[in-house]
């Protein structure tokens, strides 16, 4: 069985920065060995560390013991307990206090004397990532070690990351995009990760200023927009990577002009990981990640990813462009993505019409859903005797917050076209006439 070492980096290279303090690969491996020695006997392990370095340390120590890591970006106790129970987690690793019905360890470790770089079988499932679906029920996606390594090396090549590049991420380490580009990238590609948990414009600017150049910012369209609108002072950047939602040309142009660095996007999904990239302002063509193979048909597309056992179906419509690039031609009709989460409009409508007092109802996506990171779904509802507020309150108990409709249009009957089909356009006109 072919194996790949825990890290591909040189022992003296800086792997991470915790505040101003650099952590070398040698130090990291010594901490991994020490932590691994005190882990419980049985995995899987639920890892929800907020500190990115501790998330990596815990993952690496668990991996070296053969324990699968369950990655949950959602830190609500209910969700964590649900995942732990469903997957039989033996313990959890975290720096955040959450009461759970299993042992929770803080993955801090003083470096031991030994610092081996263990070989991990490429086929071994290293992590399980989750997608939420419209009802919030977590769907597991197994990640073999070989697939994670291939993705990290693809990212290093694609984004030209060198050994000394500081990588600042604003996405949780447990989100697939964050895990690949801020945890796996330093471990198996290049660059030095930033350990801190940053979210607001002020956090991002202050953390970047404290890191040595060159600096790579790994973020989302929403945070890019917030950074630009808040006008906080930013240090020089060398690259910006955006994912989780499409980035508009206008926002990309504004970011490139403000910070003098190329803005690149990643196209991917939790099931497949990162699979293509583009420089937003260079045009609509996406370049597949090294080693991926796309199969594009009339009504469907799938991708074969190095290290994954089967092709992964995609929820977007793809069309070949010139020179091995593809364009995204919109999503397959029923699937929508809001706040980085995917759901089926029909599935949401079923939940809506299941509410007592609701006679009829549909969810509608705005025309700019794929271009406007703040866009929300609307709902048209027939429910005599119920208020819009009451509908939202009932939905709140049943769907992910991201999919709560804004606005809710209350109607005596759903508008239908001459064929009797519910008119999406008529509802959109009522919902977004402002």
């Amino acid at each position, binding site marked *: 069985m072919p194996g790949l070492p825990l890290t591909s980096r040189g022992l003296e290279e800086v792997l991470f920065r915790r505040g101003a303090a650099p952590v070398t690969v040698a130090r990291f491996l010594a901490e991994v060995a020490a932590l691994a020695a005190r882990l419980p006997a049985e995995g899987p392990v639920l890892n929800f560390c907020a500190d990115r370095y501790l998330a990596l340390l815990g993952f690496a120590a668990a991996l070296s013991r053969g324990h699968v890591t369950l990655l949950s970006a959602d830190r*609500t106790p209910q969700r964590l307990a649900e995942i732990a129970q469903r997957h039989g987690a033996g313990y959890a690793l975290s720096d955040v206090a959450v009461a759970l019905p299993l042992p929770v360890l803080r993955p801090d470790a003083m470096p031991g004397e030994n610092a081996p770089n263990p070989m991990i079988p490429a086929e071994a499932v290293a992590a399980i990532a989750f997608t939420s679906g419209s009802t919030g029920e977590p769907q597991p996606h197994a990640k073999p070690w070989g697939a994670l390594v291939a993705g990290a090396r693809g990212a290093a090549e694609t984004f030209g990351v060198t050994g000394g590049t500081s990588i600042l991420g604003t996405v949780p380490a447990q989100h697939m995009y964050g895990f690949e580009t801020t945890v796996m990238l330093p471990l198996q590609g290049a660059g030095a990760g930033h350990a801190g*948990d*940053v*979210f*607001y*414009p*002020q*956090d991002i600017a202050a953390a970047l200023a404290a890191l040595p150049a060159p600096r790579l910012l790994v973020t989302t369209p*929403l*945070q890019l927009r*917030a950074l630009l*609108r*808040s006008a*906080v002072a930013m240090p020089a950047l060398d690259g910006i990577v955006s994912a989780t939602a499409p980035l508009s040309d206008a926002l990309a142009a504004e970011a490139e002009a403000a910070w003098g660095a190329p803005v690149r996007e990643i196209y991917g999904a939790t099931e497949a990981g990162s699979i293509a990239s583009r420089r937003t302002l260079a045009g609509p063509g996406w370049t597949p990640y090294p080693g991926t193979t796309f199969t594009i048909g009339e009504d469907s597309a799938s991708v074969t990813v190095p290290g994954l056992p089967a092709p992964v179906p995609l929820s977007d419509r793809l069309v070949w462009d010139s020179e091995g690039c593809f364009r995204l031609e919109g999503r397959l009709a029923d699937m929508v993505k809001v*706040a980085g989460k995917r759901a089926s409009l029909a599935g949401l409508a079923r939940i809506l019409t299941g509410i007592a007092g609701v006679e009829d109802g549909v969810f509608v996506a705005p025309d700019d859903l794929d271009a406007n*990171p*703040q866009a*929300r779904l609307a709902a048209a509802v027939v429910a005599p005797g119920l208020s*819009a*507020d009451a509908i*939202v309150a009932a939905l*709140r*108990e049943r769907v*992910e*917050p*991201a999919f*709560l409709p*804004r*606005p*809710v249009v209350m109607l005596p009957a759903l508008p239908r076209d001459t064929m009797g089909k519910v008119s999406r356009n008529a509802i959109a006109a009522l919902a977004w006439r402002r």
Partner: protein
Amino acid sequence: MTTTLSFEAEVARLIVEALHLETPPEAIDPEAPLFGEGLGLDSIDALEIALAVSRRYGFQLRSDDERNHRIFASLRALAAHIGAHRTA
């Protein structure tokens, strides 16, 4: 309607306007959680509120203020935090 809005009511209106919520400002329970099972806000909303606060009250929210725990614990907590840090 000549009475001065309480500061909590002012912040409630800021939230409803910034986020295009269906809930009327006066219907927000000042003690209920803004995220999750309370008002059902998410991280997009946290960024939006941070932007609206920086524009209206002249200061930036930061993660080391323990973002989802203390400040956003409730409308009351958020209003108190803004009241203590505002520069405008």
